[in-house]
């Protein structure tokens, strides 16, 4: 962590910044009275749930608000100048030069029809007055700086030719091109895999140290905050509710909302403890409580809270730390969260056995579209699912996790391999065995895309039941649907409403209810919480855990979030390039990973205590169409030896029952065997 240069002059001071959203003719106040400041070389992390106004705040600083949003009050002083009444021309001088911004979505924030070189170059021309060859040389140096290999070639490429991580690096290079003194980074690593995220965060930290830049980091990931921030600002429903130094915040967050955030985090609560999900929802801006905005969901609420709005007040003894609460909590938040551990799982014979599963997609090329190669999305995966047990499938994007799920659901044809249900071979390859469909259901990542917006919730549930012949008459279906909704914690009157009337978390509940409608024995969950906020994620994870205990379902849980794995899964299988490289009980694998790739993945997860150095991973994941010879991981593996380049290691058991595909599994894991 770089130390902050010792100056007291703030680079950026925001006072009383308030924004309103126009709906028709009315203006709804959104962000209300934001106060904070930022010094050169300092990182302030702004955290909070989706929709609390983080991105709007960032855009307001740049004066790039969407047309429907207006600044209603406040001041923004930057380098001694008041920005909000600066003429537009002067503001344009400042954008890109004084302050640079990295936007939330690298995929859509780059211009698709201009080359990387053109997009970086125009900043250099605009702000540094570079011309001709100098532009290209400088752009190349910038790409080099953000860690893009072969920058000269990349300059002439278009955004769609870059991977997600590279696009984000290009965004960073663009934001840095004008050598800004303030960098605003809006969720710079949220859309990325942990290993790439780790590289991007390292990069930002290093650049900041070198240039003495101030960094306003917007994120909802407390692990990222712990790693990057000097100070933390927590936003709730458009207000800052807590502002504290990083250490103070992680040792003893004071605002009840901040504390609730921690209690909802799978990585913060002790293993086996239940997540404390926040009840209720963030109030809509149009219906904001007059006094404390958090009162409806607060566990410390008193009558004063509903009468008088709390102010952001410095804490006695440490005026740097401020809290907006009449009755701030104290002590470790974790004490409140410790609860009874989950019962030890029961073992049973496997319901579903998958062996040697392969799914290949043909690559077609040329005038006649002949098959020229195969994308080996899944290349020999074996796993078992037992009742009441959860197997987590983890790995980075593109490793084939989702394809495994879809193949099991018969949404894709299998190239090879067998699937057995309670010992009986299923009419696999292509045969549309409908009873299979009844035994297995899938919950998808995006609760917004997976529900038909034109059907009521009741119809959505009924459709599944009727298609598989669970119910035939409508009245019985309605009763069954109402019971299902109750099971996932929604009110029965939701039946006649449409999906868009529900929040993200509620929609995911509906999707789960739809899956449960046919009483499946196996539930495949594909990143069911990755589109959700932590407090909502906690609700869904708790729900899934409850349902499993009650219904003894087997879960195949596809995710890239290790905290979720640790919280929910009994067993974990780590995938790389279409194959399982390590498989075993969650406790053993997470405590002592044996495969080098598992080690890298685990080290890259940002931790709440901010400790632990990520292991650097060289290069990018190779294409599954042309995996490296020998062990697929050898070009990036820190332990690789000559044998690794020649022979793919077999998936062999260690003494503790886990399986590892590596010639040289980690010594620590092997030693653990003996203790057993």
């Amino acid at each position: 962590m770089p130390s902050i240069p010792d100056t007291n002059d703030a680079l950026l001071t925001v006072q009383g910044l308030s924004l309103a959203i126009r709906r028709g003719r009315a203006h709804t106040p959104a962000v209300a009275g934001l106060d904070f400041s930022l010094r050169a070389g300092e990182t302030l992390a702004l955290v909070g749930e989706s929709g609390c106004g983080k991105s709007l705040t960032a855009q307001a600083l740049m004066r790039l608000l969407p047309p429907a949003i207006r600044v209603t009050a406040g001041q923004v002083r930057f380098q001694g100048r008041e920005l909000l009444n600066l003429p537009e021309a002067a503001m344009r001088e400042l954008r890109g030069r004084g302050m640079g911004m990295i936007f939330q979505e690298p995929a859509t924030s780059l211009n698709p029809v201009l080359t990387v070189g053109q997009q970086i170059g125009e900043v250099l021309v605009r702000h540094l007055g570079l011309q001709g060859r100098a532009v290209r040389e400088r752009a190349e140096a910038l790409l080099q700086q953000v860690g893009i290999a072969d920058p000269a070639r990349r300059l002439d490429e278009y955004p769609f030719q870059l991977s997600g991580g590279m696009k984000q690096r290009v965004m960073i290079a663009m934001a840095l091109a004008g050598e800004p003194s303030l960098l605003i980074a809006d969720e710079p690593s949220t859309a990325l895999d942990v290993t790439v995220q780790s590289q991007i965060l390292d990069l930002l930290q290093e650049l900041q140290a070198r240039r003495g830049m101030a960094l306003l980091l917007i994120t909802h990931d407390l692990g990222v905050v712990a790693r990057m921030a000097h100070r933390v600002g927590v936003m709730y429903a458009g207000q800052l509710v807590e502002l504290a130094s990083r250490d103070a915040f992680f040792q003893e967050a004071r605002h009840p909302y901040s504390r609730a955030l921690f209690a909802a985090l799978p990585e913060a609560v002790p293993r086996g403890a239940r997540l404390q999900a926040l009840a209720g929802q963030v109030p809509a801006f149009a219906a904001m409580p007059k006094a404390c905005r958090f009162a409806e969901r607060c566990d410390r609420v008193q009558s004063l809270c509903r009468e008088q709005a709390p102010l952001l007040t410095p804490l006695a003894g440490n005026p740097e730390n401020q809290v907006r609460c009449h009755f701030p909590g104290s002590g470790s938040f974790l004490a409140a969260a410790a609860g009874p551990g989950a019962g030890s799982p029961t073992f049973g014979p496997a319901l579903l056995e998958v062996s040697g599963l392969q799914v290949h997609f043909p690559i077609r090329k040329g005038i006649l579209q002949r098959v020229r190669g195969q994308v080996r999305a899944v290349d020999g995966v074996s796993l078992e699912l037992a009742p009441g047990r959860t197997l987590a499938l983890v790995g980075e994007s593109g490793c084939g996790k989702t394809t495994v799920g879809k193949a099991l659901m018969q949404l894709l044809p299998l190239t090879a391999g067998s699937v057995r249900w309670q010992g009986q071979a299923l009419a696999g390859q292509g045969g549309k065995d409908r009873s299979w469909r009844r035994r297995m259901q899938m919950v998808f990542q995006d609760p917004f895309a997976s529900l038909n917006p034109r059907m009521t919730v009741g119809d959505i549930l009924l459709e599944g039941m009727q298609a598989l012949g669970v119910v035939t008459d409508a009245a019985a279906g309605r009763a069954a649907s109402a019971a299902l909704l109750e099971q996932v914690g929604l009110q029965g009157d939701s039946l006649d409403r449409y999906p868009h009337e529900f929040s993200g978390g509620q929609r995911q509940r509906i999707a789960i209810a739809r899956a449960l409608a046919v009483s499946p024995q196996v539930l495949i969950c594909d990143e069911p919480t990755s589109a959700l906020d932590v407090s909502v994620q906690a609700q869904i994870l708790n729900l899934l855990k409850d349902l499993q205990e009650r219904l003894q379902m087997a879960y195949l849980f596809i995710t890239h979030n290790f905290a979720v794995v640790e919280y929910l899964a009994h067993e974990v299988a780590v995938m790389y390039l279409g194959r399982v490289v390590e498989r075993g009980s969650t406790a053993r694998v997470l405590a002592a990973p044996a495969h080098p790739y598992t080690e890298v993945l685990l080290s890259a997860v940002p931790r709440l205590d901010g400790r632990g150095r990520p292991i650097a991973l060289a290069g990018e994941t190779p294409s599954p169409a042309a995996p490296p010879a020998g062990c697929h991981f050898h070009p990036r593996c820190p332990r690789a030896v000559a044998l690794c380049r020649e022979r793919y290691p077999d998936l062999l058991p260690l003494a503790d029952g886990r399986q590892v595909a590596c010639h040289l599994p980690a010594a620590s894991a092997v030693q653990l065997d003996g203790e057993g």
Partner: protein
Amino acid sequence: MLAYILRRLLYALPILIGVNLLTFALFFVVNTPDDMARLQLGVKHVTPEAIQKWKAERGYDRPLFWNPAAGGLQQLSDTIFFDKSARMFVGDFGQAEDGRDIAREITSRMGPSLAIALPTFVLGLFVTISLALILAFFRATALDFWGVVACVGLMSISSLFYIIGGQYLVAKVWQLVPISGFGEGLDAWRFLVLPVLIGVVGGIGSSTRWYRTIFLEEVGKDYVRTARAKGLPETLVFFRHILKNAMIPILTGVVVVIPLLFMGSLLTESFFGIPGLGSYTIDAINAQDFAVVRSMVFIGSVLYIAGLILTDISYTLVDPRIRFE
């Protein structure tokens, strides 16, 4: 890239054959040669003999696909299909009712058609895109609002009105140019000004509104915000970032009509007495000259397919995402 174009052309072949068959079915199976003869001869002269004679004169008395009476290859070639339809592939369209060679007629009439259609197209594109850019630049202002109102107004007026009104005002009242007719050589421009002008004005409403919508859609995208965050002036944001992206949907809509420009415009050419392919078609329809109408339908379809192929190719030229596939 070359492989891609070749593949597109290969794909077009079966479609062309299909179009040819369809035209054939339309003109000979649905509407039999007997029907044609009756229409042509008029009610008064219809006797079985007259019909037979009419058909024999034009070669319509042969079987449709298969001629068992002929020998060898002629069994295939001595048929209506081969003579009237298959030959169109090599540009042989046969003769019109007045005995003139249709192919030659078409070549000589292409020039006048293009003389009107091409300037109308280029000028219209330039004017409407410029207007749409202005409206999008001043979006959500009074200018934008009244601009859209004007567009809707212009759209709702029939194109006949533009033609007749323009002829009355410019040619009759102000006497600036001749009302109609066509001249060769340098003199031609006097006859061209008015139809081109009317063509451009008539298209302003709908095209401007459509392009404005495309521009506005791009204005709201994330990459535009990124461009602004770099501190670029709004003109650069528009001309470098937005225009280039908006050209992709605009091109797809526009390129498809380019080959059809050869066909001229039915209305404009008839009203201005331009000896182009548009008026040729209208005249043929009036005269119930099936050979000509059939040829024009076939040529129109071929040009449309050519337009679709051109669209695909131009798409790959402007959109790097497709170019590199």
